[in-house]
């Protein structure tokens, strides 16, 4: 058997010892080329399906890209953050993380879809803001020291004097199941997301509410109204 003389012949490859390496190199370059020129970032939704965030064109937004990259980074960190924690704590933390992540991804996706389906120029700033809140909660969770038990000591206080404080799980609050529990600083609460209500005659409207994230032991937060209160 003699080797073919044409350098372009497919048969030539079978007689050239370096051909396999060259083919592999071409394949590698092609694959890396695709990855480098990718014009979107793919994010997984909670149900396992994917969502592509555009990195160019009319629906591209640098604020949204920053959030998408943060989510990708936090996806990796969350795996590490709860290592060594008791099983029930790890499960609870991951559940809360997935809620924040979902908030962020849902709002980013809604912003892109809205831009595609309307005569608008840019991604919706309010939706981007909501996505940023989700990412912020996600990051806060990842960065918090992991508690040793599901129930943690809390120290939630308010700047309003003579106020009563009540709390409610955030999920129940969203479902409008308003079965408020009375709160006393020092109470041990299950880690999670809560809505706290501060009631006082000194407040306009009589009360205000604020989300409280209880991830660490102890969990501390001072509740204060956004609008000014007469002293």
């Amino acid at each position, binding site marked *: 058997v003699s080797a073919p003389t044409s350098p372009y012949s497919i048969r030539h490859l079978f007689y050239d010892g370096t051909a396999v390496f060259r083919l592999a190199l071409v394949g590698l370059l092609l694959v890396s080329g695709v990855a480098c020129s990718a014009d979107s970032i793919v994010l997984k939704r909670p149900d396992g399906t994917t969502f592509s965030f555009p990195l160019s*064109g*009319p*629906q*591209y937004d640098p604020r949204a890209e920053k959030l998408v990259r943060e989510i990708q980074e936090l996806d990796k960190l969350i795996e590490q953050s709860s290592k060594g924690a008791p099983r029930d704590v790890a499960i609870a933390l991951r559940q809360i993380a997935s809620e924040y992540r979902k908030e962020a991804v849902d709002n980013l996706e*809604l912003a892109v*879809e*809205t*831009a*595609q*389906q*309307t*005569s*608008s*120029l*840019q991604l*919706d*700033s309010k*939706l981007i803001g909501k996505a940023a809140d989700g990412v912020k909660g996600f990051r806060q969770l990842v960065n918090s020291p992991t508690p040793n038990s599901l129930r943690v000591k809390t120290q939630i206080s308010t700047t309003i004097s003579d106020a009563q404080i009540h709390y409610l799980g955030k999920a129940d609050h969203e479902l409008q199941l308003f079965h408020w529990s009375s709160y006393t600083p020092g109470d041990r609460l299950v880690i999670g997301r809560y809505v706290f209500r501060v009631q006082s005659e000194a407040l306009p409207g009589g009360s205000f509410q604020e989300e409280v994230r209880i991830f660490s032991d102890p969990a501390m937060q001072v509740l204060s109204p956004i609008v000014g209160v007469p002293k």
Partner: protein
Amino acid sequence: MRIAGVQLVPIVRRVRWSIYGLMAAALMAAAGCALIDVSETTTNRSAVVTSNVPECSTSRIQLTTPTVGLFVGISDYSDARIASTPAHTLGAAMMYSTFFDASRKHEIPEATNFLEASLRLPVGSAEAEAATRFLQIRTHNEIWAKIRRPSKSDFASSADGKWTYLGDGKLVTRAKLNQDISAAITMAERVYQANGSVLLVLYVAAHGVRSSSGEYFLQPADARIDDPSTWMSLSELLQPVRRWIEEDLAAQGNKQVLVITDTCQRDTELSSSSSVPQAKALPHWLVVVQSASPGQYAWHFPSSAQSRETVRSDKTHFGIVPGISDEKSGTFVREFRSRMSLFPLALQCGLAFARQTYDNSPKFQGESAMIGNDDLISITEESLKELLTKIPTATRGGFAQDLAVIGVNAGDTPYFLIEPKSESPKGTAP
């Protein structure tokens, strides 16, 4: 919903020399006997098109006044950061269709409608096919006739991989839009001189925003996303029509103008030049309807259609060997998806609803009913709200879309009238 049932029965007759026939002929010829195989193929095609777009017929609805309409859909943007979308062109075509159908061409031949849009989409894309298909099934035949099919020169000149399907192929730039408005005013003046009254309708579907100072702008095709000086303010859009009305106040309502801006009014962080004046109080007889209120989006209806085509090929043979047909029999289903501005659909469906209400009301039996400015706005808005519930993204995001109206049509001169049903001739089924 079945919106069109089209029976297409082109008969294709092919006389085929099959390879077997040739072989047989060669053998027969060799045997001294010339015999060929001739087969005849008859292909029957029938297509049924179904669509999710509500069928809202506006038959028996007529314009009350000789009308000149300019319907603009800005679908192509030269700045790649601004989305090009067929929704605006489809919207303009639907508005054109509604007014064209309602115009009393037989009585007032001077009445004219212009359609100004350029819809350019990637060569051979599903989007292009879907958009042209919707233009075909949702608008008047006159519009379909205006669609320029791709030619060889398009291949040569389309370095950017785009074709022009509708309009004259030029982008609807700020200068072109101003020219078109001037031409429409000239035509409206001519119609007014001939008839003593005229309604000028100016509809523009485009991208739009409110600047940080709260001023409304729309984006012509040559707008730059980061340069508000390239945007078109409402006052710039209205300036020529205002001047036209104010120059002849003696016309006293015989010159009416209805301007419809079908754009978003979402707030943008970019600030506009303070030298651009705000729209001042409008003269009587000039009404501006905006398809979305300040801070809102103008949504696009996610239209889809399915064409179910049945092909049946029947072959008859003359000869001794069966022929081979390249026609395949069977049922072929094709899906089309595009987007169209919501407002024109809402207007059509609002008019259709008004006619239905009129037909069901014993009060109007045998008489015409009028649809004035306020009625038109209210029926369109109701319809808009209902259609918005069919857009999942809008529902999920809790978005609303309400019309905004600037100015008054003094005297509420009716735009449309609903003609009574013609009675069925005796002896025929109703």
